[in-house]
């Protein structure tokens, strides 16, 4: 099945998604890699400069360019999600994440958290950075750029029909990666 989802969404829509489905998301997404995961987990939700519960979490360290004082996305494919496995169950719970976008899959702790908190993990084609960049309509903001540097900072992107994303781990405890290993 193919779905087009506007973010934020409700649990009903997340529950519809099953592994193998194709998804396109419209709304806001924020990037977070190792350093941002670590940093956000240390902070109080109320002190964050943006509301992660209203956005999709994108495992991505984009290549950006500043032209005439405005940030532009040059290339922005997903980064390897398994690095974030050590943070992700706590991250989903703390920030109410509904949709994760990454590549390569995640482990058992995330799988359980997705089921418990009704969320999905979706895969975007790794390395398809130019293609992904063209689906980003606007760079809304960036946080912690000075401390963390371009790849690790939290970038907020406004996207339209971002995808195709493959639903690879759903909210029913199923994982494509686990099925393949069988």
């Amino acid at each position, binding site marked *: 099945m193919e779905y087009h989802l506007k973010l934020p969404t409700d649990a009903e829509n997340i529950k519809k998604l099953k592994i193998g489905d194709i998804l396109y998301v419209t709304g806001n997404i924020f990037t977070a890699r190792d350093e941002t995961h670590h940093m956000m987990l240390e902070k109080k939700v109320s002190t964050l400069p943006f509301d992660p519960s209203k956005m999709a979490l994108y495992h991505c360290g984009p290549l950006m360019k500043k032209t005439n004082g405005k940030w532009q996305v040059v*290339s922005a494919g997903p980064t390897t999600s*398994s690095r974030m496995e050590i943070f992700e169950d706590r991250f989903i719970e703390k920030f109410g994440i509904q949709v994760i976008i990454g*590549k390569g899959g995640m482990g058992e702790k995330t799988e359980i958290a997705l089921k418990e908190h009704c969320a999905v993990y979706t895969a975007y*084609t790794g*390395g*398809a*950075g130019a293609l992904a960049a063209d689906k980003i309509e606007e760079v809304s903001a960036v946080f912690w750029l000075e401390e963390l*540097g371009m790849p690790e900072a939290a970038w907020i992107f406004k996207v339209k029909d971002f995808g195709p994303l493959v639903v690879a781990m759903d909210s029913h405890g199923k994982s494509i990666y686990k099925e393949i290993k069988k």
Partner: protein
Amino acid sequence: MDYENIKIGIVQLIKKAETELPNDVIIALKQAYKIEEGVAKTQIDAILKNIDLAKKTKRPMCQDTGIQTFFIEVGIKSPHINKVKDLIIDSVKKATKEIPLRPNTVDPFTHENHKDNTGDHIPYITWDYIEGSDILITVLPKGGGSENMSRLGMLKPGVGIEGVKDFVIEEIIKAGGNPCPPTIVGVGIGGGADLALKLGKKSLLRPVGNRHKDKNIASIEEELIKRINDSGIGPMGLGGKTTVLDVHIEKAHRHPASLPVGIAVQCWANRRAKMVIHSNGKWEVK
């Protein structure tokens, strides 16, 4: 000598590698597109569209523009020998701004990003010496996701080549979707720990589809390709027939007590480009 002009050439070399994939890789990906179905086909489709878009818009195909890795063959009569290293470092800084490249060099202690893709020991350069007065430079921007799947096995010689094969297959299956398959796998066998890994990485420079000149090694490469692809991991680890586009083996003689196996993994974006710098300072990017 117009060294600024040589820097323009090195920036162009890096730009070519970052924005245009060599034909041998594209041919292999198109072949994969033909045989894949379902989700696997959608992944190869996105990869091929991305390659086209990057080339047309002269943008890096992947946001991870890698660690700039150079293999240099210096003609011993070249008048630029003493300048090449500095020219490369300056050009990497220039390329970071102009192409642009993602700033990818981070201090392991302070976490500070150097912001220009240079730093301690980086860019990473391997030197070799040849006859004549030309300098041949190959660049291999190496991404982190695939590099993280590198493995070193110090096997017991008693396990023999069968043990080597099992080690490689097991590790590539364990890597799953992490290194952005379909990958190119370089396997260095023999030497010491560092040499095995180095040979593995260097073998990634060999065009996809080219077999080792030793027939026995060539047939082992073919066997590994088949056995890994039979695993069904597929493009991006989402299932399918193509997990590797190729496996390249290189060997060195080993110590009687050691059987080192170095695995270097390269994502589908097997970015590489070559240039030559002549003694008169003229250059060509190939």
